[in-house]
């Protein structure tokens, strides 16, 4: 069942279990691979494409979060090309919506902001879209700001897989994709929402936040959500 395999990450030989993904193996061995849509304890979707890595013998780049390891796999977690592509992906996210860090409750605790800083993004080369997006304040405890949403679907998965309520989905398609609750009802009126707040904790940016915090004040307890699934697996 738990077949042991040896893999190479950036040259270092690492023991792993067959069926683990490259990202899991890397994270448990303190090897850094950036990721935004990945969250421990949730299913993987491979949507942000930041975790793309080079695998020797494979001409295409592969997402670390969904590619299982096998004996002898050799991975390069970084290269000039990967870095350039990751930078482009981050710039694309910034240009897609209105990420105004200066006035964000999550500033300083935001995964997108941190990734940009880590990858040396100093400016965005692509034209900004400046979409006009709403802020949903209808929930008594939480707020949803579409301007800061990166469509990673962590909230969707948390709600469906951990809480089991399935309040959230991505609606529309392409650049017009939007996070919706139920039939695009205001969050505060969503009858299936249990107000558990796990989606808020799972959100990597300031798109979902608790009310009552000021700029730079809102920290998230992501580990709590992840821990919940690992505890349940032990059931």
């Amino acid at each position: 069942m738990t077949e042991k395999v040896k893999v190479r990450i950036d040259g270092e030989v690492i023991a792993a279990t067959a069926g683990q993904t490259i990202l899991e193996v890397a994270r448990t061995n303190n090897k850094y691979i950036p990721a935004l849509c990945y969250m421990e304890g949730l299913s993987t979707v491979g949507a942000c494409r930041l975790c793309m890595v080079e695998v020797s013998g494979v001409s295409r780049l592969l997402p670390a979060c969904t590619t299982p390891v096998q004996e002898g796999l050799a991975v390069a977690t970084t290269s000039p090309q990967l870095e350039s592509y990751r930078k482009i992906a981050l710039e694309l996210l910034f240009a897609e919506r209105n990420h105004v860090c200066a006035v964000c409750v999550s500033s300083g605790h935001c995964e997108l902001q941190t990734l940009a800083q880590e990858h040396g993004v100093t400016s965005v080369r692509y034209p900004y879209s400046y979409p006009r997006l709403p802020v949903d304040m209808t929930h008594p405890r939480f707020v949803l700001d579409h301007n800061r949403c990166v469509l990673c679907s962590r909230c969707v998965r948390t709600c469906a897989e951990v809480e089991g309520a399935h309040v959230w989905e991505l609606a529309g398609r392409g650049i017009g994709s939007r996070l919706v609750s139920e039939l695009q009802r205001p969050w505060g009126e969503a009858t299936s929402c249990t107000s558990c707040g796990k989606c808020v904790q799972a959100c990597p940016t300031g798109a979902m936040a608790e009310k009552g915090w000021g700029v730079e004040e809102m920290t998230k307890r992501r580990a709590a959500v992840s821990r919940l699934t690992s505890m349940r697996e032990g059931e």
Partner: protein
Amino acid sequence: MRIGDIAAFAAVREAGLAKLLPSKPRIAVGMGTCGSGNGAEAVYSAFSSQIDVRGLAIQLAPVGCFGFCAEEPLVNVWVPGRPLLMLHGVQPSDVAGILNGLHEGAPPPARIVLCKIEEWDHITGRVKYGTGFPDVPNWNEIPFFSGQVKTVLRNCGLINPDDIEEYIAIGGYQALYKVLIDQSPASVIEQVKASKLRGRGGAGYLTGNKWEFLAKAPGPEKYLICNADEGDPGAYMNRNEIESDPHALLEGMAIAGYVTGAARGIVYVRAEYPLAVLRLEQAIEQARAYGMLGTNVLGRGFDFDIETVEGAGAFVCGEETALIASLEDQAGRPRVRPPFPAQKGLTGKPTNINNVETWYNIAPIVTKGPAWFTETGSVKSAGTKVFSLVGKVKSTGLVEMPLGTPISTFIYAIGGGSINGRDIKAVQTGGPSGGCIPADMFDTPVDYETLAQLGSIMGSGGMVVMDDDNCMVDVARYFIEFTQAESCGKCVPCRVGLDKALRILNGFTLGTATHEDIAALDELCRMVRDTSLCGLGQSAPNPVLTSLRHFRREFEDHIVAKRCRAGVCEDLAISPCENSCPLHMNIPRFLQLYKEGRLEDAFLSVILDNPLPASTGRVCQHPCDDHCRRVGLDEAVNMREVHRVIADEVLLSDRFDALAARVAERKLEPTGRDVAIIGAGPTGLTCAYYLALFGHSVTVFDSRPAAGGMLRYALPEYRLPKKVLDREIELIERLGVKFQFNASVGEATTLNDIAHQFDAVFMAIGTWKEAWVYLPGTELTGVMAALPFLEAVSRNDPVPVGKSVVVIGGGNAAIDSARTARRLGADVTVVYRRERKDMPAIPEEIEAAEHEGAKIVYLAAPHRIVGGRSGQVKALEAVRTRPGEFDNSGRRRPVPTDEVIRLDCDTVILAVGEKVDPDFCKASGLVLKEDGTIEVDRYSLESSRERFYAGGDLISGASNVSNAMGFGKKAARNIDKRLMGQKRFPSLIPNFVYGMEPPETPSECRRHVAGELPAAKRVGSYAEVSLGLTAVAALEETSRCLRCDIRSTER
């Protein structure tokens, strides 16, 4: 009805054959969606009611489509014992004639008979129709069908898709029966593997291997899915296959069900194809009733059933994981692989997905064996593929060809080449995931690997032909707009990257893009290609990347020159006519000014755009006509003739002095800069005119005694009277341009001498050197080149032309020579090696030459000139040619035959092409190209030597007057910008105020054409042939203009 044994099978087959080949005549109407869109339903009901009313013993049936969409509606007529006749373009009014003929045993009117079929190989069986009709070509003798191999389309258009018995009659379901009776699943998989059949959906994965994965996957529950969510814009073969022959699909799937152990099949078909859905559902019902689907298929204890699901309009659902997601009640967003569908597919069960066309190859492979299958196609890509050939070709439709067939065969041999005579420049294959392949690569074989090497893909087989009117930037933009709109939005590169790529591309079409944008676009597209989650994102950048690779110049044109040559990017042009004009005349402006009765303003508008309007008004090749939007209504506005009228009304009248003064008023302050121009032809004159207006001091050098170049010395008086040209040159002189005639640069004065005296030099000599062909006998007396001949005539020099002249060539110089020789009283024959439609000369001129009595011999290549004892020409011998293969210019290569013809004559005029004589720029340090033309920057026209500019024929090779003048104008703008450091051209043009309201109702009048001198009066006279438009007709023409220069107020 349920078939449980071989006897029952045979009985149904007999019954089917009795329908397909009844004892009475059968008429079958092509009733695919495309047939219906072209009126097939009306034709069918006309047949139906007339057969009823007349009580005729005729069987009427609907069939699918035979693939020749351009000729719809297609009707098959069969009389026992005779070949099947395929009729094309059938209208309800033809029905009576067809039925009458049938009754009397005569074939239908020849006009609508396309071809005949004596015997047809359905692969699973053969049908013999009969013999006869020797005058009617066989189906594969029609160019559109020549070379086609119908495997997938074997039954399309010949059997009734609504009737399972007709399918069984031609051997349908035999392959399934054979497999169920005596073949093991493993052996069938081996056969499919040995056939090297590759998935026809685009990726080209080996079908046999995919089946093997599924067969080996554990578990009792497995799915087979047919992907009929054909979403590639430009491809519609799947629709036609299902509409015309649904049972072949079901049979292929049932065979796969048996060999892979899957009990359920799903056909996922676009809801936009209602007829395909309907026919498929009917076919499934019938197949169940006959025991081909359901439990205990064909009594062999095998269970397999198929259902349909309608896709609701999402291109991404062509991606297999997205398709599966949509079957699971979710939005069609793809999932990452692994796990692959063969491991975990629909509801987690092993699943195999194949494209429609893949399934159609299964029964033939089982029937005929893998060796038969691999006989067709190329080594790595076996079999045939159906392509939808559409776009700018004459014959559009579905074409099934062996893989590995060169692109040129599709476009020229099958498609019949360009639809409107414009140059074909590219073909787009593979839809939004594919790329554009330029015309100079049309010898590329169409198979999976070769197309991939060019950055394109086979895809589902779309083939869209583009010509000069298609802007490749716009095409790239179009595809990104499409994929951007179809992106599911799940992964970042595809969702945001395509949106940003579209914004960047929009910048090109608006003229706001920069060189950095090309690099940014390229980098972004590579990132999207390399990091997207599914095939849509990974291939979406292909159209941009291939366009950047093969058509980079068009992108640069949009950035540097802010021009879209095709005239598609509207923001870069005033109107389509302006865009197509080499001089970029503001045509709507002078039309409107003339319409408002403001002749002087109209003249000023014309002359500031074009210094030789009376000349071009007579001899311009008028590309504006080809781009006039009025063509959509009736015919183009006769813009050339209107500007001729405007020019003539001023230049040839006493208004000349006043207007010449008004032009001189536009002159800018003297700059003190000196510019030399070499060559006083149309290019040099145009450049001199504008430079003088800019305030520079201009000196024009020419080796001849007067200005005008080709206009004076090559164009015959009857086309361009010299008094007209003289007036135009006088106006240029009045602006202060100085001329030095009889001054041959390169001899007494060298280029280097000139360089010392002037701030800039513009070189614009013409193509005066005859490309003397190698032909035995050219040394004989009586052989001469066209241009010296025309020049001698224009100078009134004596010309030694005899009684009987042969002209060799097909260009304007050849026709001018022929017409001039006719005027000198000779009998004239023009000999041309290709067909008439290939002649480069202006068609109206060819016609005029014929009216004047010149004979033209086509398809004859001169072989030798025969001389007499005195060394005088006696005859020309030519070899008859026949049209051969298509070359990359889309014309058929003339291939010599054994037949030699002899034309007795005493004079031979050679007009086979003119070249530049670059001797004058020896030792000047200028870089020349191989053909002797000068290399220049294509935007500034500056040569390799600083401040030396060149234009006209000298850089383009022999061209026409307007193109040459366009270069002169462009050179003047660039020289001035260089000398003065700013763009000053707009300040030359006064602010014309004129009506900018679109015409409520444009005149419904048809196009007016210029009157002509009767042919009888022309021979022996140099009087001008064209009489021009009357003032009334010219005014009417201006009212026909649709004013494309006025944009909607919304913009």
